[in-house]
């Protein structure tokens, strides 16, 4: 289907305009169904991105697929309309369209006032998010990146909790501050492109990828990008907007915030920082790794002491995203794979956790852990689903979190020692242990034991999850299990993209190695990959890439070791 990406991007916007102009405010039922229906349509339309994959030969070469353009948009300054995805961004687009459906669906009962505005903002937000992941022109990317802030501001500011105004403006200002500094970086790159492009500067990513930049110049650009992306991720010192925004946001807002918006930071690092600024990336690694480690440990420790379930989940995001960053900047194929997979996983499991917290909050209007206890007796279905998601979040083998985390650890293990100390693994593993501790402890306090709070019984008894709630939880649970058991279709899709990025990064690593006078011998094992999680995965690998079959054995054993 031609222009499928544009279609995906603008359908929600068109729907939002239809609602604004043609649907009266009091037709709330229709608005709900319509918005959810549009999200569903968007999701269905995005499925060809997944299935159309196998035939896409350009993907195999590590190029953009479903590419649109580049068409001239603002010719005099070299802005182009250029859309396209690769194996990495297609996953994020799919995640976005899926979470869009769930977010709209889960809001039917939760949002009781100003429904029209709510769904309009949700739809506009969807346009912004898909646009960010599809844009291959820096100007376009920036436009979508900022467009997305406004709807999110309103989602938090109007339908949020008691402290919503503070949280909304904090979210907005933090992100904006980062992005304007990023804009300086973008412009600095822009003015380098003239030589490659017949004297005409351009924002087109394809041209910018070809730039050969001076390392010290790269360092400054990286700094500018770092601020923009690290705030979004959020990395440790920039994370303070996140707990506020998450706690105050309505459930759907939290789901999208955690599921998609945070990924934009990591996406930015992956799409822009690594391939365009490889030398600077390597120089920044110690700093980035230390911040990631602090993020992992600090996020987990703070989660441990939270009294509010939602806040706990919010801080756990800091910890999980620390993992993603550590994996990505391990600069090995396995690490990056794990990092991307963990982005998806985090979208699934944290999104699901926010939905689950929302489900119980709708009934009891409290999120305080101490108000609960013995919930398993009152809501058995809910308890079961919560268990699955909890386990997925802490990385139980067989569920999605495990695959991502193990790949990240593997990547960190293979990371050249002159880039960063191997002790990284120790910290990451302790982060995993702490992760299990805070999640399970919360689970225990909320679900087990006797029902101590009489109100709880009153609100919740005989009021287990209804079909709608089960309906929107089911896809996430299924995905968690599927990725846990058989992740190779997901990973296969991102492989060519990662290869392209590695082609840019490896020479920079080699340059540094030469500069330090280290022999490249210790780097051979980098070829070894995560491979067989399960027999099924091994089989699949065998079919798809027979030459890789020989390498399957060793990593499989390592997994058992964890």
């Amino acid at each position: 289907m031609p222009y499928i990406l544009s279609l995906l991007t603008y359908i929600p916007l068109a729907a939002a305009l239809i609602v604004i102009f043609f649907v009266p405010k009091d037709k709330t039922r229709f608005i709900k169904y319509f918005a959810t229906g549009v999200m569903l349509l968007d999701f269905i339309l995005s499925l060809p991105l997944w299935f159309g994959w196998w035939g896409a030969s350009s993907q195999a070469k590590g190029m953009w697929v479903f590419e649109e353009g580049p068409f001239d948009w603002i010719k005099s300054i070299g802005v182009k309309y250029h859309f396209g995805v690769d194996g990495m961004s297609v996953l994020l687009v799919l995640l976005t369209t899926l979470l869009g459906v769930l977010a709209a669906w889960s809001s039917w009962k939760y949002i009781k006032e100003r429904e029209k505005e709510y769904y309009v903002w949700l739809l506009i937000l969807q346009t912004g998010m898909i646009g960010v992941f599809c844009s291959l022109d820096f100007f376009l990317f920036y436009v979508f990146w900022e467009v997305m802030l406004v709807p999110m501001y309103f989602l938090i500011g109007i339908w949020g909790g008691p402290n919503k105004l503070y949280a909304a403006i904090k979210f907005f200002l933090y992100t904006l501050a980062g992005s304007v500094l990023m804009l300086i970086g973008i412009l600095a790159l822009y003015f380098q492109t003239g030589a490659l492009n017949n004297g005409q500067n351009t924002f087109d990513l394809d041209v910018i990828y070809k730039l050969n930049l001076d390392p010290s110049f790269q360092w400054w650009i990286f700094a500018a990008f770092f601020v923009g992306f690290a705030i979004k991720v959020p990395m440790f010192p920039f994370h303070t907007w996140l707990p506020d925004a998450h706690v105050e946001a309505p459930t759907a807002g939290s789901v999208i915030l955690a599921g998609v918006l945070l990924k934009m930071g990591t996406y930015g690092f992956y799409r822009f920082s690594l391939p365009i600024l490889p030398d600077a990336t390597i120089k920044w690694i110690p700093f980035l790794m230390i911040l990631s480690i602090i993020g992992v440990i600090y996020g987990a420790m703070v989660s441990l002491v939270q009294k509010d379930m939602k806040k706990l989940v919010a801080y756990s995001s800091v910890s999980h995203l620390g993992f993603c960053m550590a994996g990505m900047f391990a600069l090995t194929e396995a690490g990056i794979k794990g990092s991307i997979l963990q982005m998806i996983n985090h979208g699934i499991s944290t999104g699901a956790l926010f939905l689950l917290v929302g489900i119980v909050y709708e009934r009891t209007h409290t999120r305080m852990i101490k108000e609960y206890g013995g919930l398993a007796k009152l809501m058995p279905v809910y308890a079961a689903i919560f268990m699955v998601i909890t386990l997925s979040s802490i990385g139980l083998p067989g569920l999605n979190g495990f695959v991502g985390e193990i790949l990240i650890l593997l990547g960190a293990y293979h990371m050249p020692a002159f880039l960063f100390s191997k002790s990284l693994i120790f910290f990451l593993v302790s982060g995993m242990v702490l992760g299990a501790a805070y999640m399970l402890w919360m689970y225990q306090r909320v679900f087990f034991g006797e029902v101590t709070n009489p109100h709880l019984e009153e609100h919740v008894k005989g009021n287990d999850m209804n079909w709608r709630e089960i309906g929107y939880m089911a896809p996430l649970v299924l995905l968690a299990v599927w990725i846990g058991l058989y992740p190779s279709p997901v990973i296969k899709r991102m492989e060519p993209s990662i290869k392209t990025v590695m082609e840019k990064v490896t020479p920079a690593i080699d340059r540094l190695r030469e500069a330090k006078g280290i022999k490249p011998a210790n780097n051979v094992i980098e070829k070894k990959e995560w491979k067989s999680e399960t027999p099924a995965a091994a089989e699949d690998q065998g079919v798809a890439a027979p030459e890789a079959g020989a390498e399957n054995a060793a990593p499989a054993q390592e997994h058992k070791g964890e």
Partner: protein
Amino acid sequence: MFSLHPSFLHLLTPEIALLAFALIFLVLAAIKGDRTLRTGSLWLSLLSMGFVLFFAVQLLFAIPPDGQTVIAQTVGGHSCMVIDRFGQIFKALFLLGGMLTLLLSKKELDEENAWTGEYFALLLFSILGMMVMASGTDLLTLWVGLETMALSVYVLAAYLRRKEASVEGALKYFVLGALSSGFYLYGVSFIYGATSTIHLESIRAQLGIMIAKGGIESVPFHLAFGLILLVVALLFKIAIVPFHFWTPDAYEGATTPITAFMSVAPKAAGFAMLSRIVLGGLVPLHEILVPLLSLTALLTMVWGNIAAMLQGNVKRMLAYSSIAHAGYILVGFIAALKARNNEGLTAMLFYLFVYIFMNIGAFGVVIALKGNGCEGDSMDHFKGLFHRKPWLAVLMIFFLLSLGGIPPFAGFLGKFFIFMAAVHSGLWVLAVTLAVTSVISIYYYYRIVCNMFLHEAEIREPLTGSAPLAVALSICAAVNLFLILFVPKTLAVMQMGKIFG
């Protein structure tokens, strides 16, 4: 002494027509009295401005981008007025600002019951003055334009003469404005003493020779002193920190359409004159001027935005925000001065174009809120606006987001081009300051958004509508929203030849 080429007379059609219309309005007001004309004079003046705009735009497209026609000369063949693309664009901008102001005026004049014919005549005269400011090329011609503009605006600022705030603000404006005019003339006298000319081109040539011979130190003190006075006087006019003190009071006191007008057209005219003088005459001094102007631009962006955060009155807040915006525009100007190319100038023109629509739009919403004894300019008056009048609130969001520079609104493009020019000419500190201060600005713009959407209404009386106002707001909103689709065309119009030294 002074000669006007008759063959080029048609190039002056806009100015001549405007002068004629202004005189007609004065006479009409005297003959028919103020009461009888009322809205009639509004439509007439709108029509006449439209007519002039038509001529100005026609001229704009008739002259080639890099063409420059000298239409008036003084003794010795020195030009004192030129017609070129740069000036013509400015003229179109003034007229656009003027027309939007007229559309805003009906409701305000009804509310205040203050219809007079002079209101319209003064508006036309002030625009005439600005047009001269945009095309003059010697110091005295520019000064005549400046004074024509300033004297008309002083009176307009004091238009509500029974209101204390209006008179106070206008008086402050007048005293400081007169002082800066004095600075200007004092500076000109020094320059004339040192160079025996008032023609910018000759000044540039002489400065160029001096600096080529003995470097920047060889500029004699009294000349440098005169030049600094000149620049300071201009910075007064465009309200650059630390010469901005008149702005908040004058803006708050003046009747709101005039505030909107003052924040847009005279400011644009100030930039036109600054460009004519600095780029046309003082370019050889760029080594001193760039750091000097950079410092003021930096202070302006920082202080304008910080002070705006502290305001409880929306008009005052917008006054400080317009100071900050003058700082952004000045960055574009400095980029042009430093790199000595047109990129910064185009960015500046583009920003001024966009700024007209976003700022007049924002003031228009303030006017829309006025009525039933409520001035409409307090933060509290915006509370719950979304529930009272959803569309008005939505339009206000467009204007505020545009002012804050959030894509896809036009204000983003304006900032973007200035940003680009600054980065391109290596003004890193200014670029970063611009970036950071526009984040700060979001904070106070969002106070209004927050009041409109997230609070319950305190005032529940229905708002009195006004058709011209609605038209003006729709135009402003449409430009803010859709300009991003027409950027290539807009930029193509603003491409100029290398007109400055």
